[in-house]
Structure formats: structure tokens, C-alpha cells
């Protein structure tokens, strides 16, 4: 690791908060999970990036890319990665347990008590309403992350091109996710690799 890089990382670490303990991880992820109706991602972005500031917007995006491309539930993958980074294997387990324990208990109690209620018109209506809201939550999370592209090595124009292409493929044409991630994603990674060929002079250097 070169000194300049280390320096910038130290500043970042100093200027940023992080989880205090494995218990903190467990409690924080439990809280996140319990607020996440219809998916936890939107709340994760708001809490970890905007409130707790454990991650910057750019770091969140990077981690999310990894959590997304690997198989398994995205938020579960993300909690595992963040937990591991701060407290190793046990941290990963703590974050994972936080994400799953209480929601699992709640959903089983609901299944046991209200097993038949899910089919009533009112419950179906409520689900529709929450679905409409969840759609807005997730879309807005994506919109808020667009700003993180400004420092991307590929440049803003290429980023927008790739984003529009992916949106059309996934959202409108409904191509299978795997194809888009491998096809468009693979192209993008190769392009980013090429863009890194010329080492950028460090900021502020003459």
C-alpha cells in the first residue's frame, strides 16, 4: 500500500464512525431489519450511510455491487460483509444474526397466528399499498446513489450510458438479471480496467 493511499484512508477512518462492538453490530442490524418492510435495502442505505456514517456513499455502492453479484439475499450478504470487516468472522455472524433473528421470530408468529388472514381483501389491499411504497423507496435509493458516479474512472457520460442500457434491459425488456450482470457488467468492468491504465497523478500534485 503506498503512503498517499494509506494517508487518505487514515483520514477517512478518523472522520468516520464505525460499530463499537459485536453487540453494536447485532443491535444495529436488528433495528435495520425490523424497520425494513418490503425489503431492507432502502433503510440500510439511509441508516448506515446517512445516519450512522459507517460507510460513504461510494463504499456503500461498491459493497452493494459485491452483495448483488454474489448469490444469496443481498442484504444478508451486505450485513455479512460489513460485520466481517470490523470484527472478523464473529462480527459477520453477529450482523447476520441481527438481520435474521427477530424478523424470523416475527414472521413465524404471524404465520402461526394469522395463517389464514393473508388472503382477506383488506390484507391484500394493505400489501398492495406497501408494495407501491416499497417501489418508491427502492427507486429513490438508486436515485440518491447517482451522485456517487461523479468520481467514477469511466467518466460520467459512459456511466450514464451503462446505467440507461441496464435499466432498459432489466426494467423494460425484463432480460434475466444474470445476463445483464455478466454481459453489460462484464463490459463495464473491462472498460473500467482500461480506464485505469494511465495512472492518475495524485490530487494536488504539481
Amino acid at each position, binding site marked *: 500500500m503506498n503512503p498517499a493511499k494509506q494517508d487518505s484512508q487514515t483520514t477517512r477512518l478518523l472522520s468516520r464512525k464505525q460499530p463499537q462492538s459485536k453487540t453494536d453490530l447485532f443491535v444495529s442490524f436488528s433495528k435495520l431489519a*425490523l424497520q425494513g418492510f418490503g*425489503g431492507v435495502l432502502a433503510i440500510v442505505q439511509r441508516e448506515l450511510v446517512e445516519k450512522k456514517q459507517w460507510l460513504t456513499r461510494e463504499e456503500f455502492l461498491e459493497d452493494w*455491487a459485491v452483495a448483488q453479484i454474489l448469490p444469496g439475499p443481498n442484504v444478508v450478504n451486505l450485513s455479512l460483509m460489513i460485520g466481517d470487516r470490523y470484527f472478523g468472522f464473529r462480527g459477520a455472524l453477529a450482523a447476520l444474526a441481527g438481520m435474521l433473528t427477530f424478523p424470523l421470530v416475527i414472521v413465524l408468529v404471524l404465520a402461526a397466528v394469522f395463517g389464514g388472514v393473508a388472503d382477506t381483501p383488506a390484507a391484500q389491499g394493505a*400489501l398492495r399499498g406497501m408494495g407501491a411504497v416499497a417501489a418508491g423507496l427502492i427507486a429513490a435509493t438508486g436515485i440518491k446513489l447517482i451522485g456517487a458516479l461523479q468520481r467514477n474512472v469511466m467518466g460520467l457520460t459512459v456511466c450514464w450510458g451503462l446505467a440507461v442500457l441496464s435499466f432498459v434491459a432489466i426494467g423494460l425488456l425484463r432480460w434475466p438479471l444474470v445476463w445483464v450482470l455478466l454481459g453489460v*457488467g462484464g463490459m463495464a468492468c473491462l472498460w*473500467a480496467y482500461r480506464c*485505469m491504465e494511465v495512472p492518475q497523478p495524485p490530487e494536488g500534485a504539481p
Partner: protein
Amino acid sequence: MTTVLSSADWLALLVHFMSLSLLAIGGAITTAPEMHNYLVNDKAWLTDSQFTSSIALAQAAPGPNVLFIALLGWNVGMNAGGGMAAGPHAWWLALAGVGIAMVGILLPSTTLTFAAARWGHQNRELRAVRAFKQGMAPIVIALLIATGWILAASQGSPVDHWRGWLLTVVTALLVWRTRLHMLWMLGTGAVLGALGFL
């Protein structure tokens, strides 16, 4: 509905979920059609409506949507035990079903993620790793917005279901521009929906 599951059947269930685990790119929900085929059509361990309401209930409850897998396991066990009225025996089988289903769907994918993410973090200065993260960034953003779009579109066309679409757009603007707590928005959506406004 009552079914009979042998030990071999339980093992088959575990193996089936473990094999789907590594295919679940984009979340466990992407394997739902495959699971439906196996659990409802092939094996008849679940009814169609048990399958659908497992997904609906997990979406309505807080937490990751992968918990619908736990409910599938719950229902498979409950059916094998003769239903809720059959007593403690059925409840234990239902809990066993939850354990088998969740371990099956999570163990392979989390192990892979743990190893891959750790490797990626240790090698974060490698050009290939940085290129991956930089390259994937715009696609990941597009994927989020597309997910929102697909969810919104599942309500039906914006003309016929303009109330639902309006709710989606207003929510997106509120999340983007304000710090209003998301539970208020979800609560409002649930109430509006339950009262039949959508």
C-alpha cells in the same frame, strides 16, 4: 392438507434448497418459480395458496424477503405433521422445516460471499478488484431503479392504477428530498391499501 415426509424426503428438501442457493443471484426470490415447481407441482408438499401466501406474508413482515423461505419450510413441516390442530408434533416438524429450509438456502451462498468478499477486501488495491467495483457501480444503480420500476409496474398500467403509481412517485420524492421516516410512508401505504383506495 396432510403429507408424509420420510427422512429421505427431508434430505432431498435440504439438497434442493442448497442447490438453489448458489443460483440465487439477485436474491432468493429469483428462485421462487423453481421452488414452486418442486414443492407444489412435483412433490405436492405445499398447496398453491400456501406458497403464494408465504411470499405475501414475508413481504408484509419486517426483515429480508428471504424469510419467505422460512415460511415455506414452516408449511412443509406443518403439512407433514397433519396441520396446526395436530398438536406439538406438527409444530416441531414445522420448526424443523424452518431450520432445514433456511440452512439450505443460506449456507452455500453466505459461505461463498464470506470468502469472496474477504478476498476482495484484502485485495482491494488490485487493479482488477477496483475495476470491478467501478465498472459495476452504474449497473447497480440502474438495477435499483429498475427494481423500483418493476415493483411499480406490477400494480398494472399507470392509467388504470394511477393512485398506486402516484403513491410510488410521491414516496420516491419524499425519500429523495426529505428525511421523513420510511415507516410513516409504509404505514400510510398499508392503510390506504387496506381501506381500498388503491
